[in-house]
């Protein structure tokens, strides 16, 4: 097995995954696991460790959320109202393990191969936030992952790392693994909260944000699996060590990348934040069959597509990808080579979004299937000459505040970027169309306006 990290790099998040029996607690403890948790617990009585100290360390590390938005983790924690303001309401920590962004499979590796790393991260975050009951919401389809996590939680309770008065520290902490029902939208944090509460997974109107009113109307922090793993490592080795990874102060830490599509060795790779795209591509064995690179989706299917030219010098971190008018998202990099039929790829992605729309907001509920029907027609050679303009117009009226959550913004990103950047391919589909009155028209004003907006980066 070739290494899943650059030569000379010492893996952090994936360090233990290839060990036999890596999910078991004995091996984890032997590797120095739960040292930070025990250290913090022991330091409570002496006053050496306080919640704010943990938060400050995370803030100092520059850790940004690994779930997609890249929001500074420590800052997010400070949004929880202080005791005076929230009264008797408990604070909840909710680990978002509903990993379902197409192209993303990094959390699954962590869950199945090194669950205690996640649990320790959750314990430390719970301490920092004053949480007495933490939840981990795992995607319904990850049956094995849920089994592994439940076993790990049982082990942690058995070793006295969870429960009442943990390690004699006076601290109570419970942790529950909750399995989702298998809806993409439940990865959206407020839909996740609704689903955890036993309701339909419908995103909530914001504000109020979960930090103020989340699970059962109580302050809630929702963090991604990888983010919480990073918390553990920051507590192990300190924020200064964490900041040695990365291109600049705003993009720090080790990062997992999911590379898929036309590469020789698709999979999860660990690399320092900010690794140039081409380096990561080389790590994955380069484009399959030595063919030419055509397009890249850098952050899961919700991220706008980039052309081969746009990714040549792109560093893979939050700001680097944003500078290229896309987003790092969940670092799910989908590589498409020259044989890729972009309209077909876009139609395929749009099918996913039409299937996964929760149905709450009109523009998304009606718009996603409409886009999909049109794209299907276009790639099947039944397109009409107005279709491209209509696709752009319809997609343009679905995003930017038209819906409660950003699902429809995600759904239109591949459509708008695909048409803006690969318009000739779509036009070729139309040219194949049987329609006798077919005649290619110049892009209308609207299309050009939208294409212009794309160039400015509608997601920035």
């Amino acid at each position, binding site marked *: 097995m070739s290494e899943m990290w650059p030569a000379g790099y010492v893996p952090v998040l994936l360090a233990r995954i290839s060990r036999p029996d890596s999910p078991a607690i004995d091996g984890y403890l032997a590797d120095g696991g739960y040292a930070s948790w025990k250290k913090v617990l022991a330091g409570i009585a002496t006053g050496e460790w306080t919640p704010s100290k943990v938060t400050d360390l995370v803030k100092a590390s520059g850790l940004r959320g690994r779930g997609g938005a890249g929001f500074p983790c420590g800052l997010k924690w400070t949004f929880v109202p202080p005791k005076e303001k929230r009264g008797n309401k408990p604070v909840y920590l909710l680990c978002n393990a509903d990993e379902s962004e197409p192209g993303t499979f990094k959390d699954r590796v962590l869950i199945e191969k090194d669950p205690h790393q996640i649990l320790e991260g959750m314990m430390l975050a719970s301490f920092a936030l004053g949480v007495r009951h933490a939840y981990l919401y795992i995607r319904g389809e990850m049956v094995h992952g849920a089994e592994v996590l439940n076993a790990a939680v049982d082990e942690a309770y058995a070793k006295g790392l969870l429960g009442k008065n943990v390690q004699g520290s006076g601290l109570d902490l419970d942790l529950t693994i909750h399995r989702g029902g298998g809806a993409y939208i439940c990865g959206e944090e407020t839909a996740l909260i609704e689903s955890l509460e036993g309701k339909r997974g419908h995103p909530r109107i914001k504000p109020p944000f979960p930090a103020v009113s989340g699970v059962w109307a109580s302050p809630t922090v929702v963090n991604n699996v990888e983010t919480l793993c990073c918390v553990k490592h920051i507590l192990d080795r300190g924020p200064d060590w964490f900041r040695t990874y990365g291109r600049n102060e705003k993009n720090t830490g080790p990062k997992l990348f999911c590379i898929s599509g036309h590469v020789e060795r698709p999979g999860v790779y660990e690399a320092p934040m900010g690794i140039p795209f081409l380096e990561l591509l080389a790590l994955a064995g380069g484009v399959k069959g030595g063919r030419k690179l055509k397009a890249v989706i850098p952050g899961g299917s919700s991220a706008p597509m980039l052309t081969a030219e746009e990714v040549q010098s792109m560093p893979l971190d939050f700001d680097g990808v944003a500078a290229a008018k896309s987003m790092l998202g969940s670092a799910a990099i989908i590589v498409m080579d020259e044989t890729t039929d972009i309209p077909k790829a876009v139609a395929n992605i749009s099918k996913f979004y039409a299937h996964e729309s929760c149905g709450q907001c009109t*523009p998304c*509920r009606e718009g*996603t299937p409409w886009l999909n029907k049109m794209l299907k027609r276009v790639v099947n050679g039944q397109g*009409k000459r107005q279709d491209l303009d209509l696709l752009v117009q319809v997609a343009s009226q679905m995003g930017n505040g038209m*819906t409660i959550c950003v699902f429809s913004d995600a759904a239109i990103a591949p459509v708008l970027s695909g048409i803006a950047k690969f318009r000739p391919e779509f036009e070729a589909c139309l040219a194949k169309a049987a329609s006798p009155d077919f005649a290619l028209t110049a892009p209308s004003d609207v299309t050009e306006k939208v294409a212009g907006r794309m160039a400015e980066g509608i997601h920035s």
Partner: protein
Amino acid sequence: MAKVTVDGNVVEVPNDANALEACRAAGVDVPHFCYHPRFTIVGQCRMCMVEIDGMPKVQASCTVPIRDGMVIRATSEKALAARNATMEFLLINHPLDCPICDQAGECQLQDNAVAGGLPVSRTSEPRRLTPGYDRTEIGPHVIADMTRCIHCTRCIRFCSEIAGTGELSLIERGGHAIVWTHEGRILDNEWSACTADVCPVGALTTKEFRFRKRVWWLDKTSSICPGCEIGCNVSLEHRDQVVHRFLPRVNPEVNDFWLCDHGRFLAESLNGRDFLKPLVPNGTLPSAPGGAGRRETNWGEALGLVHEKLKAAQAGSIVALGSANLSTEENWLLAELFGKTVGSPNVEFEADQGPLRRIPNRKAVGADGGFVKGTVAAPNAKGAEAAGVRKADGASALGKILAGSLVPDVLYVSDAAFSARTADPAFAAKLRKAKFLVVHARVENPLTDVADVVLPVSGMTGKDGSFVNVQGRVQRFDAAFVPPPIVRTDLEVLLHLGRLFGSFETRWTAAHVFGKLAAAVPAYQGLTWEEPAVTGLPPSSSPAAAYDVLRPPRTSVDDTDKLPALAGKA
């Protein structure tokens, strides 16, 4: 109160208002579907999009709480474009089967599309079908047709938040989402038809009214539900002297926006008319069942006969029955005529105790648990009592007649259907023991079969008057249409009879009598015919938009010339 600027106009609105309500207060009709003042805000139809200064993106106005100094741009280019977009999305899968849809004419989707939709459709994709979820009875009263549903979830929220029964929910997801009953349940609660009221489109309609009448032909009259003592405010909707339905009329003090199924479907019981002329004995007394011993005559002869019999009888042997179904004015005239003029001590009424009726009202707090409740199965028991008509009991004249210990010379029944017991021939036979039996009647029943004199009256549809509901609230109802020429209202009958005694004048109207009540009856003190105790709002042009009248002034649908120019209109 907070000051909010809407399209340049400053309005003052309560601090807990949202931007949509502020717009309506400013007279800007922001279209919407999922918003309803009594339901939680879900902000999901995305129809009420506006621009708000300081917020970079367009906002669903119902989801934005107002702040003092907020500046809302409800008709800016961006806001209108957003609303046009939502309207287009709503219409691409809607079947547009308006010609055969029973909601046509009172459909919010239709209204909003006319007011602000695109002039053309840009879709050529096949429309969504919902096989298995079309034209299905999902309960005893409601028919669901999911092809028309626009997923506003008002009906779901009615069931879960107002009725508290939660029969409905969304099943499936996204474009396949269907509003349906939970598996194994039916939509059967006390107010199930309210789901059809709140449905902005024709997805939920009532079985009873479906395909009875195109709604634009309906005349609407403010009325009061006769079903029980709660006195829900209804819009009595009729055409060509036929009542087709009741819809709730908004009255925040009584029935709020709601109406129970029992009351609602009494509407058609107001139809039917068996007597067009007064009946008097034809000389072959006693009258045989079926009226064989009677003949039709004119009012002069009929009332003359009654007058004569009353004069000849012992005052103490005259019994007059008022009714909890008659207006307070009529009961009062009866009490005046028989109690004071004729001098009978036996002016009384009987009202049925019915099952408990409840209507959700958020003002009914405490022990009432959020409901206005009524147990008397007639609308005006309190009014009859207030008018001086005594409640019958075992010791009263009616009790004695039924026990057989009193055989009155004249029994004057002002409402042949004063009790459910009148449907029992044995009960009628006991009243028939009276030497002379006079009844006011609209439809035949065992009592009219055996009466000596039947005086044909209009029933509720033909008259106006007032009821006193369970809360002691005086509520007026209006005449819907003029009854056939010979038929009179109960009030007119009593006035004409009273005139023969020299006590009443026939030019008196219900309004006139109301004025006398205001002077004589404590419950009516200080009230006027024009303004009885808080009464409901006038019937709305559209039931789904009924609450619009809560927030005047508003741009009416007729004011199309005042509507802003629409983006994208050809």
